[in-house]
């Protein structure tokens, strides 16, 4: 292994970030004549659109043009899989905040002012807002999906113990700090070049081509970096980029959009809200014999990625636990709210929350230590087949849990918590250790491929390009480390470049934690192709032993050897049959465990996380600094989801919490004062991944389930002997207090 791989190198843009010189879409110099865009949004919810009078919009100062669905030459769609996501609403308004038209003006403010002047006539329709409302009228986007093994009903019935319960989980706003943004420039022969803040340039390229009746080769999409993505720029960036491309094509001028924060939050999808109902049979040690889990989610007005997201919720409703007889049923419900979308974990967190609640419920029912119940249910020899019939071959959860319980002093701290609770009148502490097992691979098998382009110049500098996008996760530096390693050159020799659809075609979204797994393999493949050529050339040159890399490149060039190569990677071993929900959707699993300690004020419901201990498995880390950053950031983001981040909709489906003044993500003050995060020292991927590393983007978010579980324990301690509280997420002070009151009243 060279110097590059495994070192805690800084983010490749770290200096640009701190100096303010790293450029995001809105920072790029504007070409003369650039038009500024703003969407006109449907203010109210579900309705029939009967009239759209844009006269005042067109007449407003600075307005150059206004475009509606009628101006789209091709297909009016920005939906990724199902073609149900209109760029502009036509007859039916599906949710509040749906775009109706776009204004192009000489300034950002002029466009925003004008966009509010439309006269919109509608016939309001009843709005389905909640999961319960949608379930009532069976507004499923597809047949309820069923994943099963064994006879769950029989096993539940015959088990010594049985209980049932339910849990509701709220959604989550991505709150990437850089709002959605795009810039389109018209080219020759109708071609268009789009700079977008997106995780999925290829999809935007494809959608724009179809929207404008162009071929994919006519459209180039470029992204140097995003100011945060978290899944929120996988499909949700498309409307912004498409609007810019439309205006650029129609007006023949560059067109730029940057969403105001409130508009962004109203317009774009979020993490799915879920409900989970469970019915479980178990033995006296809490070991599950049979279980039925019914999941339902609010998908919003269009399908977007909801089917795959809900699939992933099912895939993670086992978490680390063997469920001998299991049935998981999942409903994907259409509602008249903004269309929910990918968000770090992609349904996995919600599925995992369900089974972790079951663990807490079983423990409370039997009066056992919840950790003991969790450990009793772990996958193990002879108990290693998932509900989707994949055999778990890399189970390290038992070791990680044991190590964490030992190093963080679980047993002693559990006693200390009990002592604390006995000694306090108002405050209650809670403690919980929860594990994570997260499946790595896109569950849509064909997405598991990547391409790269490596160019070596005659001076020995290396231009690296691949299909992955940088949203802060450190993908570019990790891939650069891998390439530097192949050539055995310093990391500084490898120049990271913008992701472009005209360099690497047909790429998958940078999503599913797979960015490094896929793109680093493709880049390694490309680099090794060139390296092999250089090695072969060097073998023919007697004096080459003493050559520096730059000299070797120059000599190779003079000898007419190609120093450019593409690389490709397709994940092996995976296959999945969605009809039966069985197969091997995942190449491997990433594991981790967290121990969280919380304290609750039982008078107000306020609470704090006081200490967190984490051990997380990233295999052999490509870059420990980047990986630790992902773990800490993911944990805090998950903690926010489960505690203070609350999306509030009114009865027409209008989002009331659409700005940071009303939607609260964690601040520095919410960071637990004690946080010990360790990479699992023995980590090594059993699969042949890039340098035996493991994906790290999403899994750590679910470590925060330990916070929710600890809060549940703290609430339970407010009324000992009353059983498990009915605490839903997010556990805002209001929900915690209500939960305490309900428990006391039992």
């Amino acid at each position, binding site marked *: 292994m060279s110097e590059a791989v495994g070192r805690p190198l800084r983010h490749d843009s770290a200096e640009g970030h*701190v100096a303010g010189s790293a450029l995001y879409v809105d920072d790029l110099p504007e070409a003369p004549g650039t038009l500024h865009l703003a969407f006109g949004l449907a203010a109210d919810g579900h309705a029939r659109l009967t009239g759209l009078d844009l006269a005042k919009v067109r007449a407003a100062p600075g307005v150059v043009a206004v475009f509606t669905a009628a101006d789209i030459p091709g297909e009016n769609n920005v939906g990724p899989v199902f073609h149900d996501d209109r760029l502009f609403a036509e007859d039916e308004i599906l949710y509040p905040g749906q775009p109706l038209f776009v204004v192009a003006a000489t300034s950002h403010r002029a466009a925003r002012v004008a966009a509010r002047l439309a006269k919109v006539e509608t016939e309001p329709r009843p709005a389905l807002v909640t999961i319960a409302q949608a379930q009532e009228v069976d507004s499923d986007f597809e047949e309820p999906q069923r994943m099963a093994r064994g006879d769950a009903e029989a096993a539940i019935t015959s088990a010594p113990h049985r209980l049932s319960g339910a849990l509701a989980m709220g959604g989550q706003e991505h709150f990437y700090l850089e709002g959605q943004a795009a810039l389109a420039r018209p080219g020759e022969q109708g071609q268009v070049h789009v700079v977008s803040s997106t995780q999925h340039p290829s999809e935007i390229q494809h959608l724009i081509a179809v929207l404008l009746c162009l071929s994919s080769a006519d459209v180039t999409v470029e992204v140097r970096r995003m100011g945060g993505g978290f899944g929120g720029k996988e499909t949700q960036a498309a409307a912004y980029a498409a609007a810019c491309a439309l205006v650029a094509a129609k007006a023949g001028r560059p067109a730029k959009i940057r969403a105001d924060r409130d508009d962004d939050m109203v317009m774009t999808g979020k993490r799915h809200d879920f409900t989970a109902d469970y019915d479980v049979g178990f033995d006296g040690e809490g070991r599950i014999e049979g279980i039925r889990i019914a999941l339902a989610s609010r998908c919003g007005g269009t399908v977007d990625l909801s089917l795959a997201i809900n699939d992933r919720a099912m895939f993670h409703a086992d978490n680390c636990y063997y469920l001998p007889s299991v049935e998981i049923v999942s409903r994907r419900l259409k509602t008249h709210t903004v269309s929910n979308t990918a968000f770090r974990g992609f349904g996995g967190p919600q599925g995992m929350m369900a089974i972790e609640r079951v663990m807490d419920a079983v423990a409370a029912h039997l009066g056992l230590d919840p950790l003991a119940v969790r450990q009793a249910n772990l996958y193990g020899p002879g108990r290693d087949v998932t509900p989707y019939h994949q055999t778990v071959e890399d189970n390290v959860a038992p070791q990680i849990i044991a190590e964490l319980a030992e190093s963080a002093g679980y047993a002693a701290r559990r006693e200390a918590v009990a002592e604390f609770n006995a000694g306090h009148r108002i405050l209650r502490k809670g403690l919980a250790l929860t594990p994570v097992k997260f499946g790595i691979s896109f569950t849509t098998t064909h997405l598991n491929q990547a391409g790269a382009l490596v160019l070596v110049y005659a001076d020995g500098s290396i231009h690296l390009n691949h299909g992955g996008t940088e949203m802060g996760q450190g993908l570019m530096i990790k891939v650069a480390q891998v390439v530097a390693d192949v050539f055995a050159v310093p990391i500084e020799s490898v120049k990271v470049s913008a992701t472009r659809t005209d360099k690497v075609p047909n790429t998958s979204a940078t999503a599913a934690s797979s960015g490094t797994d896929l793109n680093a393999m493709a880049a390694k493949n490309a680099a090794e192709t060139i390296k092999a050529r250089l090695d072969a050339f060097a073998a023919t040159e007697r004096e080459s032993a003493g050559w520096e890399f730059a000299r070797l490149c120059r000599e190779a060039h003079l000898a007419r050897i190609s120093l450019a190569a593409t690389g490709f990677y397709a994940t092996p071993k995976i296959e999945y049959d969605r009809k039966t929900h069985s197969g091997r959707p995942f190449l491997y699993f990433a594991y981790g465990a967290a121990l969280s300690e919380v304290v609750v004020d039982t008078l107000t419901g306020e609470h704090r996380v006081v200490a967190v201990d984490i051990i997380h498995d990233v295999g052999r880390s490509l870059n420990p600094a980047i990986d630790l950053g992902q773990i800490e*950031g993911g944990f805090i983001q998950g903690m926010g989801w489960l505690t203070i981040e609350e999306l509030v909709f009114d009865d027409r489906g209008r989002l009331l919490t659409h700005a940071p003044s009303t939607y609260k993500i964690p*601040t520095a003050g919410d*960071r637990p004062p004690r946080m010990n995060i360790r990479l699992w020292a023995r980590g090594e991927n059993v699969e042949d991944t890039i340098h035996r590393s493991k994906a790290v983007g999403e899994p750590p978010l679910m470590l925060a389930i330990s916070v929710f579980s600890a809060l549940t324990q703290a609430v339970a301690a407010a009324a000992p002997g009353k059983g498990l509280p009915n605490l839903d997420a997010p556990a805002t002070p209001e929900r915690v207090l209500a939960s305490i009151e309900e428990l006391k009243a039992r």
Partner: protein
Amino acid sequence: MIRFLLDGEVIEVEDGDPTATLLDFLRYRLRRTGTKEGCAEGDCGACTVVLGERDGDGVEWRAVNACILFLPMLDGKALRTVESLSSGAALHPVQRAMADGHGSQCGFCTPGFVMSLYARSIGAAGTNDLSVKDVIAGNLCRCTGYGPILEAGEANPPEPADDRETAALLRAIEPGRAGPGWFAPRSSDELAALLVEHPEARIVAGATDVGLWVTKGLRDLGTIIFVGDIPDLKRIEEGPDGLTLGAGVRYTEAKEALARLHPDLGELVRRIGGLQVRNAGTIGGNIANGSPIGDMPPALIALGAELVLRRGGERRALPLEDFFISYGKQDRQAGEFVESVRIPRPAPDVRIRIVKLSKRFDSDISALCGAFALRVEGGRIAESRIAFGGMAGIPARAPACEAALTGEAWSEATFEAAAEALVKDYRPLSDLRGSAEYRLAAAANLIRGLGLEPESLFDV
């Protein structure tokens, strides 16, 4: 003409829209794009810049949000942006620590954090008595989890800076003080006269609320009178009887004096907005805009604060609680302005507690805020003043609850009775910050809590 100092150079801004923001000016006129827009409402800190005012031979610096700072508010001041910190390849130590310590991931919030930590490193306003986490509570990061940023802050403690050069340059700048559609008077007499002449004018102090009318409401504010540079509105007078704060005193500037009046007041101020908001917003502005939640008014009402209003040469005083008439309506006449607020010093036998409840501890607007001032004589509650924010359309006292306490013994039973009386005082609304049920239940529990030994989440 507005003139301000940027990196040693005087920037002259020709007459234009007085509500044009500093952020847009930096990004789209000067092409200094390091300062970012994250929310355009002062809640994320991505646009943090540092603003300086001459103070003798030195400069008083403060971190503020550029997104809701109108250009005339820069008149005669010095500005530093993230680009000011690094010349060429040499990074400022704060930048170096952030970069080397993995303090950035996506990088978009990073310049704002750099500026907040930089402000602390030069001892800027409000940073001296705050921990690093409080200094950056007004900066949101969605990637890191804050650990490395806190470390970068700890590694760069405040050091005195020599600002004589900047002070000299500032001394040479002649502020414009007025332009088409705006005035920036330099005395309260001048302000009083202007308001008589332009009773319709909008008074703007820190623009932490009014700024959003422009960036979010896209409103035209008409004639504006900026009151941020009126020295005699910035007086802080501490005496044996109490504290008088001029209406132009910013939260940051009032914090220490308020904390000396009672520690809970200092703590309440710490939790209002981020530091950038407290460095701009004024207590007078918070009162005059009549927010139904009003971060400070419940506490001030419980303490018996009095407001002085002025129109022309006439002044009148009224109890703060009488200023708030109903939702969105205050007892302020055309041409009148809030000049000062006087807060009596609590007697030694008065027990005070101020509690703010919100979804997030820092930089959040309260779901409710309760303030309690109880005078205790020989084990009995001789006098009680209780006020809540978030429980009605205006910050208001709780007469039934007060009646249940006054004259009663200090006991759990007394507070239980008072807690139960609360339903007679308030019929709160349900909104995105909390349901009516939660507000009533939590408010009642706060009353119950008065009778118990306090236990704080933050002592654990």
